[in-house]
């Protein structure tokens, strides 16, 4: 299971808790634009990422560029891993 798969599964679970189905969500779709996740669910996703990948997110890093899509989240996590912080 890749990082993208794990994040996709989490998004599907968060969306399911809101009574919707996100199984067909693509990894390049902008999460906020889909309307599947509300702002609180986005925050839940960020908190889950911190715990799942053992990182602390800096408030300045939380942007559409880094967390807009699942692909962008994976790229951000890879950059964090490469930089060792």
């Amino acid at each position, binding site marked *: 299971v890749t990082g993208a798969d794990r994040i996709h599964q989490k998004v599907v679970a968060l969306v399911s808790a*809101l*009574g919707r189905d996100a199984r067909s969500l693509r990894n390049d779709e902008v999460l906020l634009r889909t309307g599947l996740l*509300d702002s*609180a*669910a986005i*925050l*839940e996703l*960020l*908190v889950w990422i*911190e*715990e799942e990948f053992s990182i602390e*997110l800096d*408030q300045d890093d*939380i942007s559409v560029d880094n967390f807009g899509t699942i692909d962008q989240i994976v790229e951000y996590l890879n950059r964090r891993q490469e930089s060792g912080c």
Partner: protein
Amino acid sequence: MARRLVAIATSIPRINSTLVDDARYLYEGVNLGFTVQSGAGLYLVTVADAQNYDERAFVDRLNFLQRKAMKNRLEPSETTGATVSFTSMARWNVPRHQPILPPYTAMIVAHSAPRNGSAVLGATYDHRVLTGADVVAVLNQLKEPPREDSR
């Protein structure tokens, strides 16, 4: 909308007040209480002196507190001292709810899920401090998008 409540509390100070014994106290700063669910728990996080934040800083501060709440890592100072509060059950698709007034405050606004394009905005308030007309004025201002948001 939560930030709009801060601006309204600045312009109508009596909604940012409390009654203790027979004396009414107007708070100097607006400490916005905002409900955050964490698992089975519920926090009222406090954006202290929220009137000093611009839009971006306000959102950043509130998001920071929300994430700390979800991790159950809030400091006592981050959950105390609210002077006016906001709660929403829109995400749970609840069309109307009636929150309990936090201690030493006069008003909490209740935001709900929209039905057929419109949502019910409600409030619980201390009738010894605020009149119904005061609350209607606040809710009417809240429902209007501010000029900066209507671009």
